[in-house]
């Protein structure tokens, strides 16, 4: 019944853990950039004048938000390869993350855009700003500032969810752990180490997002109050 912990057995694998953690971070970075882009476009689409575009974007968001990520992974990864499209695993994993987080981002960004008072847009129109300029300066920038905490929280959750890409053998942190435990026969210790690494990554990511927010939102930096 007594179990002897032996973390020493994992020492030889420290490089693998490090590589896995770096892969997780790289995947996250790609997914944040592309997911944000898709989310913003989709949020704009849902506010567009075209009913077709509204429907299409709404359908995408609801479909993704109401199905498990692992099913999305299998659908995209095995589906694509069944029609002969064999993406590199890393690219496939990033693709599934982007598709997934894009929908959540769209919903958050849309909620932010809904808080922009119509008077703001009229004031910008009266000043002669063009529609794209209004979208950027008067709608998106304050909307993103307002939802920044929710948005970055979602990105941290996505980083954690990226562990599920281990199921298609993307060589990220969880897949590394699965390998290491099968070589070292130290499953419990391995997953404890990996849990700690994920915690560290989550803290790191939160700090990075905080710093980035201070950088790009001068108002928050100077006043410290939410917009």
């Amino acid at each position, binding site marked *: 019944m007594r179990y002897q912990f032996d973390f020493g057995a994992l020492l030889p694998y420290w490089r693998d853990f490090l590589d896995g953690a770096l892969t997780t971070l790289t995947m996250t970075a790609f997914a944040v950039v592309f997911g944000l882009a898709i989310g913003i476009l989709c949020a704009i689409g849902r506010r567009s004048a075209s009913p077709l575009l509204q429907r299409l974007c709404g359908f995408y968001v609801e479909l993704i938000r109401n199905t498990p990520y692992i099913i999305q992974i299998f659908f995209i990864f095995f589906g694509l390869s069944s029609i002969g499209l064999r993406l590199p695993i890393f690219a496939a994993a990033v693709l599934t993350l982007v598709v997934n987080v894009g929908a959540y981002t769209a919903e958050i960004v849309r909620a932010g855009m809904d808080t922009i008072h119509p*008077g703001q847009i009229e004031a910008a129109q*009266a000043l*002669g700003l063009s529609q794209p300029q209004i979208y950027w*300066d008067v709608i998106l*920038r*304050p909307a993103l500032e307002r939802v920044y905490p929710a948005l970055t929280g979602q990105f941290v959750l996505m980083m954690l969810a990226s562990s599920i890409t281990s199921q298609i053998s993307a060589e990220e942190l969880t897949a590394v752990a699965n390998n290491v435990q099968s070589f070292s026969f130290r499953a419990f210790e391995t997953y404890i180490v990996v849990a700690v690494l994920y915690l560290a990554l989550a803290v790191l990511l939160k700090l990075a997002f905080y710093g980035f927010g201070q950088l790009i939102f001068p108002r928050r930096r100077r006043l410290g109050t939410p*917009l």
Partner: protein
Amino acid sequence: MAAAVSLRDVHKRFGEVEVLKGVSFEVAPGEVVAIIGRSGSGKSTALRCVNRLETIQSGEIELCGRRVDDPALDLRALRRDVGMVFQSYNLFPHLTVAENITLAPRRVRRTPPAEARRIAEEVLTRVGLSDKIDAYPEQLSGGQQQRVAIARSLAMEPKVMLFDEVTSALDPHLTGEVLKVMETLAKGGMTMLVVTHEMAFARRVADRVIFMHTGKVWETGPGSMLADPQTPELKEFLANGL
């Protein structure tokens, strides 16, 4: 001299409801015209048709020689000629006072940042707020925010300014500072179309007053007409206020 603003038989409907029922009036260059009338009489709508925040169903609107009702109108060119100040200030909360003011010059006219900053300093001096140039809107009082909104419009050097009840959201003790800025503008020769409930201001500053009632121009005349109303509707309006 050609009118700076002219409306001829303007009709405007929202769905089934006709809000402007054949409105006609003119504003000469340098003239200050006050529009008064009960809430819901169509004052804001008339103003918003002038800078085409609303499109009209029939009639003609001209501003500085440009047909506003022309579907092929160059909107940005129109809005370079006409500025608008709103009841609710509508300053951009995420931008500093300077950024609020320089946004349009930088984006629309491609003014270089240093030059735009100089313009901001200049217009802020005109509204008496040069010390607030780097503040954020929420750090200002309502009266100060409204003066910044006026400065923001001035920065685009409009030929005509529209004011829609710009003091209605302010505490009484803050309206004075805004009205003073507007009076200075008027004295400086700005063409102004002012929707207002400040009768004293209308009488003292406006060259002409338009009383709107149920979507029509009901009575019009010099500021002194407020002391001598001709129609029972204006009489009643002046007696009961809003």
